[in-house]
């Protein structure tokens, strides 16, 4: 796992990139790859690489080329089926000089061109420089596990794993993007291609972009989640498997996915244990492929509301693993939060990434570079409450005045201590809203997005003026053609994958928090084969009645302790606003909410923002638990704080990268 960066000139008459700038760009992402540094440079292109050595420790350096050194690559990721692809390519006559998966990508591109990406099973951000055709090809994996950003300006394109690399070039302007703010305070995150900074774009998951000399860019989507057209043909007729058959097959695929992620590595792989069924099952499968000691890692919360220790320990003991934990207190979250946001490069509405930041440090300190995690199961197999909520709402829509139907809402959200169920009547009214929109393609997510949009009251007048309220994010503008024929659950899953999973869960909570401490996450549920199979399943194999992840529970039986399988869904969460206002308020929080800094960023309304800050402090003075912060109070507070932090770190302070920290050991420089 690694960091990549570079810049390409797309016309003549431009200065080649300097070695110093390449060093600065790589320095910005050295946390992603602290082991080795390399660069390639010619008249038009500069590619740089920070390596976290995991496969082929001795000869897998990058940048790397094909046999005649005309095609160069820097990449961040793992292609888990590289062994199989390599065999095919060798049969076609390709010569390999390393044992790396990187080299396989270059030859695959030579052999199949842009069609090579569909053949990869893994996670990646790839930059290929075809020096003969003068083409830069950038590609991201199917769901955006690995990050990739670009800036296109004046016939030049910058690319990098993280925005901070692009900002290492002092000629690049920095400004908060009002559209990014608008998206954050609606969909919970900025969604590709939009980023929180004007002029910086995020490459969309499942796509590749071609920048060719003296031509306009081309973008292609090679993969999107796709579901059966059940409204035309019930999925049973398409996928004729019974539940037991499907369950057996999915187990096989998960086993294979986990095996690849355990054995395709030249360093040991450990596993996260959250205490939930997903990571428990993955750890169980992973254990099978580890001789000797198996290492597991967990987060414990001082706040009982969020803690899952009992279940983590139970699973660790079932696995007989060497188990390590980190204990997270509220003040820890406040302490690490500025660093967390430095790494997320996006505002967030929850503090949930912070404990994960601390956990990856534990893993790094234990000497580990890679871990398995259970991310993706809730999206692929319908684990979240939003799927159950949408189902109840549809059911209620058939008879909106039915008290009996409405009581189904009581089964939702038992984990929230401050459950809306305490005011059942009002909660039902809340969910009755929008029942008339039952045919809307975004029916499932409208309550969430509408509620979150109320946070826009915190925007400054300036931001309000700059937002185009009718603009839609990319993923809603271009829904797949057959979207209307999918069953409602599939539609909800599609929306969840784009709006929350790719944009927040696997990025801000996933890759960014792991890579902050040079740890690579490996996600069996995001295996290409596993995802395709899950998406082909009939809805009831995923959500039967209100019983979520039906098929997964079948697979887990006999492997994962029954009490974990039977647990009510507890999504991973951490104490939010309370982390900052109970006890002594950190100086940086006071400062970022001060009149001076609110006016400096110009993003938020002084009165309402400080009103929220006062309210949060007052709530704590009355009681010391989380209970009295409403959802919107929490999200507003964290959203404003994280945005102010981004403004402060990236715009107000503008720290310069230190190129002297980088000693390049792999150098291919045509200009020396």
């Amino acid at each position, binding site marked *: 796992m690694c960091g990549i960066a570079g810049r390409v000139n797309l016309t003549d008459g431009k200065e080649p990139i300097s070695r110093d700038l390449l060093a600065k760009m790589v320095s910005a992402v050295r946390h992603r790859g602290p082991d080795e540094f390399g660069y390639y440079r010619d008249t038009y292109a500069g590619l740089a690489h920070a390596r976290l050595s995991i496969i082929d420790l001795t000869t897998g350096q990058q940048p790397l080329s094909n046999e005649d050194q005309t095609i160069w690559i820097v990449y961040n990721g793992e292609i888990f089926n590289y062994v199989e692809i390599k065999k095919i390519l060798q049969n076609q006559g390709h010569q390999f000089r390393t044992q790396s998966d990187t080299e396989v990508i270059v030859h695959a591109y030579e052999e199949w061109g842009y069609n090579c990406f569909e053949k990869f099973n893994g996670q990646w951000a790839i930059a290929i420089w075809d020096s003969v055709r003068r083409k830069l090809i950038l590609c991201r994996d199917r769901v955006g596990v690995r990050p990739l950003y670009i800036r296109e300006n004046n016939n030049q394109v910058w690319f990098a794993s993280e925005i901070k690399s692009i900002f290492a070039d002092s000629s690049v302007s920095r400004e908060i993007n009002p559209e990014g703010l608008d998206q954050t305070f609606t969909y919970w995150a900025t969604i590709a291609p939009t980023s929180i900074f004007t002029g910086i774009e995020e490459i969309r998951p499942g796509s590749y972009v071609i920048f060719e000399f003296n031509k306009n860019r081309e973008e292609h989507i090679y993969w999107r989640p796709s579901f059966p057209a059940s409204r035309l043909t019930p999925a049973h007729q398409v996928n004729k498997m019974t539940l037991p058959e499907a369950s057996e097959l999915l187990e096989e695929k998960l086993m294979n996915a986990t095996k690849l992620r355990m054995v395709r590595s030249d360093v040991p792989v450990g596993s996260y244990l959250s205490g939930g069924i997903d990571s428990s099952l993955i750890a169980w499968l992973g254990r099978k492929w580890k001789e000797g000691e198996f290492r597991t890692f967990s987060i414990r919360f001082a706040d009982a509301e969020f803690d899952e220790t009992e279940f983590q320990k139970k699973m660790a003991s079932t696995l007989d693993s060497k188990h390590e934990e980190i204990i997270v207190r509220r003040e820890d979250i406040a302490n690490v939060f500025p660093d967390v946001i430095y790494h997320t490069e996006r505002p967030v509405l929850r503090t949930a990434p912070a404990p994960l930041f601390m956990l990856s440090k534990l893993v790094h300190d234990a000497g580990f570079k890679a871990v398995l995690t259970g991310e993706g199961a809730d999206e692929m197999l319908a684990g979240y409450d939003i799927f159950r909520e949408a189902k109840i709402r549809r059911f209620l829509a058939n008879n909106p005045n039915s008290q009996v139907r409405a009581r189904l809402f009581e089964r939702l959200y038992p984990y929230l201590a401050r459950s809306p169920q305490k005011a059942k009547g009002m909660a039902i*009214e809340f969910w009755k809203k929008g029942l008339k929109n039952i045919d809307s393609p975004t029916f499932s997510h409208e309550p969430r997005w509408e509620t979150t949009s109320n946070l826009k*009251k915190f925007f400054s007048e300036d931001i309000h003026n700059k937002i185009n309220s009718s603009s839609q994010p990319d993923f809603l503008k271009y829904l797949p053609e057959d979207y209307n024929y999918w069953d409602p659950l599939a539609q909800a899953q599609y929306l969840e994958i784009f709006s929350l999973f790719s944009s927040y869960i696997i990025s801000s909570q996933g890759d960014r928090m792991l890579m902050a401490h040079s740890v690579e996450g490996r996600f069996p549920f995001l295996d290409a084969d596993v995802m395709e199979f899950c998406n082909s399943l009939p809805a009831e194999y995923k959500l039967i009645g209100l019983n979520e992840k039906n098929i997964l529970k079948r697979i887990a039986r006999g492997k994962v302790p029954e009490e974990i399988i039977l647990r009510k869904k507890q999504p991973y969460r951490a104490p939010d606003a309370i982390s900052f206002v109970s006890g002594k308020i950190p100086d940086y929080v006071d400062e970022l909410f001060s009149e001076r800094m609110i006016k400096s960023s110009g993003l938020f309304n002084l009165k309402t923002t400080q009103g929220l800050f006062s309210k949060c402090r007052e709530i704590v003075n009355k009681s010391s638990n989380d209970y009295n912060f409403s959802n*919107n109070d929490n999200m507003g507070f964290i959203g404003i704080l994280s945005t102010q932090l981004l403004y402060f770190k990236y715009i107000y302070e503008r720290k310069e990268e230190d190129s002297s920290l980088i000693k390049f050991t792999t150098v291919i420089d045509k200009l020396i």
Partner: protein
Amino acid sequence: MNEKEIREQIGKFISKTFLFDVEKKVDEKASLLNTGVIDSTGVLELISFIESNYNIKFADEDLVADNFDSIEKIASFIINRLNSKSI
């Protein structure tokens, strides 16, 4: 205390607590849920305020939209409850 005063008090509480601006007025007839002034968890704050400020208790069956969803409805409910207590 008359109904008008109660409406003003409730209005002020809502402006301060949910809009963070006492100057911002909420339409007394507007649905608080539909206009997004209060989210489903914010309802609890409102209930707590009313129970402590007017010394009344809500049973589960009281918590329906008819009693709650606008400043006007809330004030009307409170007045009825206070009047029935004094009988």
